[in-house]
């Protein structure tokens, strides 16, 4: 390393990441939510079934229907998690909240869900009842109903207990334009709370940590908090839930969609001390860990104080913070200002998160 000072930071390659060549078989890293997932979607799925709706690159689609006032928001999500029950949540609550949140991220009010279950032969009915009870509780909290469903059972060994796919629908009021492509230079970047809780809670439930951190998953339906926020500030440009791949990956997606630079101040990013400590021990970066009850908000600078006040009124937004700004100078990337006055690139998650050796 030599030291070209001050002009040290250069963006990697062109504006958006170039797809890498695909391997012959699906690897576990293709499901990490990071660069390899992106490549798989682009090269296999988008290549053949791409269209204007998918091209917007959000977690839900906006569809204009002639007879409808406003637009329809549609999203679908497949849920696989091991273990099925973990501190603070389970696959049932996850399958409701994941889809409710994806619909809410377009500024829509989620109303109806569908749910499809793939069950493995031998799965205990008692566990299934527990999952359904959790689904019922979460639907009530989010004020949504499951209006269609399907159940398939596969032979022992063909699935891992239970997989749940949900789809969600909601109406986006007319004149509302929210999506990853609408970030603008001059906007501020907020996050609704501490990062990495879900990722650490699941690792802990797998027994991978070897100790009990006491961390609970943050899985929660965010639609009510978002509705309050949008009632107070209709001028919000972007909402995004940083799930797989974490804050870093979600912000890179937004930077790429909107062709802007996102500058973060490392010191302002909320991470609980327990999560930070677990990360220090295993060599993880909390900015790449999954969240299931957090939202990134990008909006014009003048609404920051009002937005933080509104978010902090919700039980799911009490640790809300302003973490950065949008600029135009080097579009397509995310930069992190450290406490030392230095700057580094915050890249997309590459493969899987792997613990360090020593």
């Amino acid at each position, binding site marked *: 390393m030599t030291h070209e000072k001050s002009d040290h930071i250069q963006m990697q390659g062109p504006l958006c990441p170039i797809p890498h060549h695909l391997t012959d078989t699906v690897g576990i890293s293709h499901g990490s939510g990071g660069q390899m997932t992106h*490549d798989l979607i682009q090269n296999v799925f988008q290549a053949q079934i791409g269209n204007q709706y998918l091209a917007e690159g959000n977690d839900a689609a906006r569809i204009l229907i002639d007879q409808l006032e406003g637009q329809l928001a549609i999203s679908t999500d497949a849920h696989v998690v091991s273990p099925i029950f973990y501190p603070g949540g389970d696959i049932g609550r996850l399958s409701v909240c994941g889809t409710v949140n994806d619909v809410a991220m377009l500024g829509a009010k989620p109303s109806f869900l569908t749910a499809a279950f793939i069950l493995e032969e031998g799965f205990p009915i008692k566990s299934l009842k527990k999952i359904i009870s959790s689904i019922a509780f979460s639907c009530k909290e989010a004020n949504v109903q499951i209006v269609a469903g399907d159940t398939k059972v596969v032979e022992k060994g063909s699935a891992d207990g239970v997989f749940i796919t949900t789809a969600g629908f909601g109406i986006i009021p007319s004149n509302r334009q929210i999506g990853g492509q609408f970030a603008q230079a001059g906007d501020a970047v907020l996050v609704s709370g501490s990062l990495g809780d879900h990722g650490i809670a699941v690792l802990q439930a797998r027994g991978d940590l070897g100790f009990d951190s006491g961390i609970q998953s943050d899985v929660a339906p965010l639609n009510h908090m978002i509705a309050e926020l949008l009632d107070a500030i209709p001028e919000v440009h972007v909402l995004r839930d940083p799930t797989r791949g974490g804050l870093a990956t979600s912000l890179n997606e937004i930077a790429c969609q909107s062709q802007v630079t996102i500058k973060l101040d490392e010191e302002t990013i909320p991470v609980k001390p327990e999560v*930070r400590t677990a990360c220090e021990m295993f060599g993880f970066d909390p900015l790449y860990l999954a969240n299931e009850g957090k939202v990134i908000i990008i909006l014009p600078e003048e609404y920051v104080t009002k937005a933080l006040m509104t978010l902090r009124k919700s039980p799911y937004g009490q640790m809300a913070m302003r973490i950065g700004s949008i600029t135009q100078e080097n579009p397509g990337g995310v930069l992190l200002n450290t406490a030392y006055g230095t700057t*580094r690139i915050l890249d997309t998650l590459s493969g899987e998160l792997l613990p360090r050796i020593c």
Partner: protein
Amino acid sequence: MTDVNSPDFLKSFRDASLVKSVITKIHQRITQPWTLMEICGGQTHAIMQYGLDQLLPQEVELVHGPGCPVCVTALELIDQALWIAQQPDVIFTSFGDMLRVPGSEEDLFSVRASGGQIRVVYSPLDAVKIAEENPDREVVFFAIGFETTAPANAMAVIQAKKLGLKNFSILPANVLVPPAMQVILASPKNRIQGFLAAGHVCAVMGYWEYPPIAEKYKTPIVVTGFEPLDLVNGILKTITMLEEGQVSVANTYPRVVTFQGNQAAQTLIKQVFKPVDRNWRGIGTIPKSGYGLQETFREFDASKRFDIGNIKTEESEICIAGQVLQGLKKPSQCPAFGTLCTPESPLGAPMVSSEGACSAYFRYGRN
């Protein structure tokens, strides 16, 4: 100003005003260009993660050392691991970082995708537990790492022997830091004028091995930690010694490292392992630079337990990992850097590991 997110026990070592005051001292102290090598890849990553390189004077050149265990693990050992992992009735266990390291033709991830039983463990003792729970399977642990992982690797073998496990073995692959430092210093192309020695290796081994090396090659060696304040302190001490013409060994990581090191750990290592010649990926064979199993623990050696035969290894022709690991070239000087070689499809191990120099350059955007 302190990093509010750090755990309490680390806060003071990340204090920005303390770090900046040490940086100021480095600027005041330095009068000429100096080339230092940080041995450990963990230090390389920390320097880039905190952007400390941006704060140093132009005169300081930091060169990255070979201290990335997955990077230097020989290709033939990785190919052996891949061969063993493909055998039926084998559960192959490894630290996670090793799964993506390319062998001649594939990596452990792809062996797993085609049906190989491969499990990531966080400690070698977890592998022993897997062996206990699966008496009808052969359980093999890929014992890689520097002196830091050697005690835990040794403990796994001792534990397996105590439990009378007949289905547990390790593929011994530990490598040693001091012989590698000597190879770098003895090279006619050497540019290194001072070393930041790897704090965690020294926590186990102490630094009693270093004074003869410093003396022989007239190169100061400074034991250095991993937090921002540790790193800039290590750099300040090395620069001060160079400016004053001191050739000796200093310890700037005394809260963790003593001269003698961890005696119990060293005893454990000696009981189980003996120094053997080892091939370093991209560098070549270095005499007495690895740990093989002692005769008394021979039965736990996977390379002897399995009839692996001759494996023909094949390195990428483009990758310059060897020169990067010796500090002769920078990752960005590689023609494949960021194009043919990325963390998603690495040609060489330094692009894979969380301690690899190429991965640090790619991740933190250094060109």
